[in-house]
């Protein structure tokens, strides 16, 4: 009984409850035939939103106004550049990954440089950055679609004992993020900064250093996600990141992270990512048109946020 009460107080429980309900409804509709297939697809597609969502979560934890809108452009750029560099050569897989990470570091530093040196609010700074990054992607890509190296394409599309490899990657990254957030000094520091920058500064926290590291972390995760997604879908496309802008923010919010900052959690990102994918596939199973589907998705997201937001925030 006590354990149950503790569970209900967790902010991420709602996203998992919603996921279970939607999963169940969809399975009921198809008569249980597609349970395994649906779960596998959900894990695969959720994995990408989980990876970008974790990065966005760290940034949102930094407090009101902190957000990274350059996520989609970052994904596109790292996908195009890495695939072009690898040029279908299996030997270039690791160098390609390295370049993707370096691009993330560069864009992250660029984002924070805009915020700090030009004193622009993060929402504008990262949006301007995203135009620069997107233009670079267009310039490198020039409309040519390059296939990923066979080994990498295989890895991203296959499973290990029924669990998609990309989901395993996302899981490993989530565990690292969880340790970072809950157990490390860095996690305490970002939570402190999210609650009050002046108080954090006067408690000896290197505020600028921590914020820079967080924007870099977010860009690197977006970049990794772009690398994997481009390999998964058989080549980079210029619009491949676009749906991940709203997605990265929605999974953080639905997952129970405080939008005002200072209070975050990793499990919620999983629940929310699975939920968002399942909502779309549920509406698909009902055979609804694209327009209705988008409207319904929006309404369901708002409903979940209202239910989750209506709960009492446990404060002694």
């Amino acid at each position, binding site marked *: 009984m006590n354990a149950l009460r503790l569970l209900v107080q967790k902010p991420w429980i709602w996203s998992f409850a919603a996921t279970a309900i939607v999963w169940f409804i969809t399975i009921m509709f198809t008569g249980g035939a597609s349970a395994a297939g649906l779960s596998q697809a959900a894990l695969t597609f959720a994995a990408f939103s989980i990876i970008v969502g974790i990065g966005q979560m760290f940034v949102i934890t930094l407090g009101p106004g902190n957000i990274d809108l350059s996520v989609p452009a970052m994904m596109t750029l790292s996908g195009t550049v890495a695939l072009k560099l690898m040029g279908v050569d299996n030997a270039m897989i690791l160098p390609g990954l390295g370049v993707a990470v370096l691009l993330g570091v560069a864009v992250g530093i660029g984002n924070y440089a805009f915020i700090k040196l030009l004193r622009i609010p993060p929402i504008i700074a990262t949006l301007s950055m995203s135009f620069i990054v997107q233009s670079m992607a267009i310039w490198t890509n020039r409309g040519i679609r390059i296939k990923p190296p066979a080994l990498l394409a295989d890895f991203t599309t296959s499973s290990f004992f029924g669990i998609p490899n990309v989901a395993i990657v996302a899981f490993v990254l989530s565990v690292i993020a969880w340790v970072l957030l809950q157990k490390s*000094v860095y996690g*305490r520091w970002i939570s402190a900064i999210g609650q009050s920058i002046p*108080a954090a500064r006067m408690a*000896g926290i290197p505020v600028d250093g921590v914020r820079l590291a967080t924007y870099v972390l977010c860009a690197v995760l977006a970049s990794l996600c772009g690398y994997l997604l481009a390999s998964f879908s058989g080549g980079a496309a210029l619009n491949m990141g676009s749906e991940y802008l709203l997605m990265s923010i929605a999974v953080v919010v639905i997952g129970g992270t405080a939008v005002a900052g200072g209070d975050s959690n990793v499990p919620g990102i999983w629940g929310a990512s699975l939920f968002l994918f399942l909502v779309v596939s549920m509406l698909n199973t009902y055979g609804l048109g694209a327009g209705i589907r988008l409207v319904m998705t929006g309404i369901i997201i708002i409903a979940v946020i209202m239910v989750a937001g209506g709960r009492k925030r446990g404060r*002694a």
Partner: protein
Amino acid sequence: MNQAMNSHSQSVPVVEARDVKVSFGAVRALAGVDLVIRPGECVGLVGHNGAGKSTIVNVINGGLSPHEGTIAYKGEERGRTGIAAARGHGIRCVFQELSLCPNLTVIENTRIMHRALTGWGWRGRAAAAIRSKLDEIFPGHRIDCSRAVGDLSIAERQMVEIATAFADVGQAPKLVILDEPTSSLDASLAEQLLAHVRTYVAGGGSVIFISHILGEVLSTATRIVVMKDGRVVADRPTAEFTQAGLVQAMGSVVAEKKDARVARALTTSEPILSLPPRHGRGLPFKAFRGELVGLAGLSGHGQTDMLVDLYHSRSGNWLRRGNPQVAFVAGDRGYNGTFPLWSILNNLSVASLTDLSRASLIDERHEVELGEEWKRRIAIRTPDMENGILSLSGGNQQKVLFARALAVRAPIVLMDDPMRGVDIGTKQEVYDIVRSEAENGRTFIWYSTEMDEICICDRVYVFNSGAIVAELTRNDINEENILAASFTEAVTREAVA
């Protein structure tokens, strides 16, 4: 004064609390309190941190509903309760935690507290009301009412909040609750406020006056109520109390005021810290190892700015230094002190996390040990260090901030008037800790608005308009010299300027 009491005793009480009980989880904040406030009296409310003063005040202003017992305004036994009802009966509150919106101007903040200011030209009427009240209570205050509250100093914000509470817009205040109103005001402003309280009470208004400075309570209140552990332990006219009797009633023994300044030879001739004159004016600043350096002067004359600049220049904003040089104790808790979402323990340990961790992962067992050690050393009143920081009373939150700074290995501790709202018993404990730490070689730089604290320092710098105008040592440190120096203007140094 007995006469005054008698003449009012027949009249209907402004507010009447009967057998009020409130508890927060396991903590019993009020264990059956009776409090009756009549028109024309100033009730002084005293007691230790956590005695329940703020809680009973919150019950009276409608912010908390009692779990047991009744609250009646103007004798309406079964009337409405709640914040709106309390305001409707003319009850106004000046909070210990300043409650103005920092992003709004003084005029806009007046509008928030006074709903009657509606329709065309409310700005003009609000400006007139707040300006005249400020002029009345604090003559010569120099506050520009069109400025955002966030730009004002903490003393100015407190003045605005007081003036807002006393302002008469459509409806006159009947009972004004002042919770530690003088703690961030310097002596001259405090005296202006107390004078206004006396006039207001003489005119038939009522005031509940909470203060840890017993002299103020004795000189201003007509009746004194002493609280201890959520109960009223004494309720008598002021004339029947003396300072010693009051302290005894509160249940604490004040240590004999010993001369803190044991003649200590400053063996090191090399200062641990030295700064050129601020803004090119006045005297340079120096601090030696193991010294207690006081920063005095009227409040808001650049003492806090100097501490903050000092801190910023000696701690990394991009990387944390391996050995922290400075630690900081905040006075403005809500602004640069507490982390409201966190537990007491997390708030305490935040500045020493790098010492508590291995490979940058926090050792939680060490953290708990640190928390228990300081809970014992500085007597933080809580059943569990995992409780939220906001579950503590203001004074106890301040103790946590103290522990946070003292737990850091830094050789220099900066204190930004941290004793605001802390009771006498705790103050004595903290003074003792500060003294023993100083003997072990730590340097304390201490800005304080309270003369007693300044007087236990080894050396004192007096500020005026952002610059140091005087340096006092040893036997020259007394109220008279400090006040005299506070009004001296700094001379511009030709060489620097």
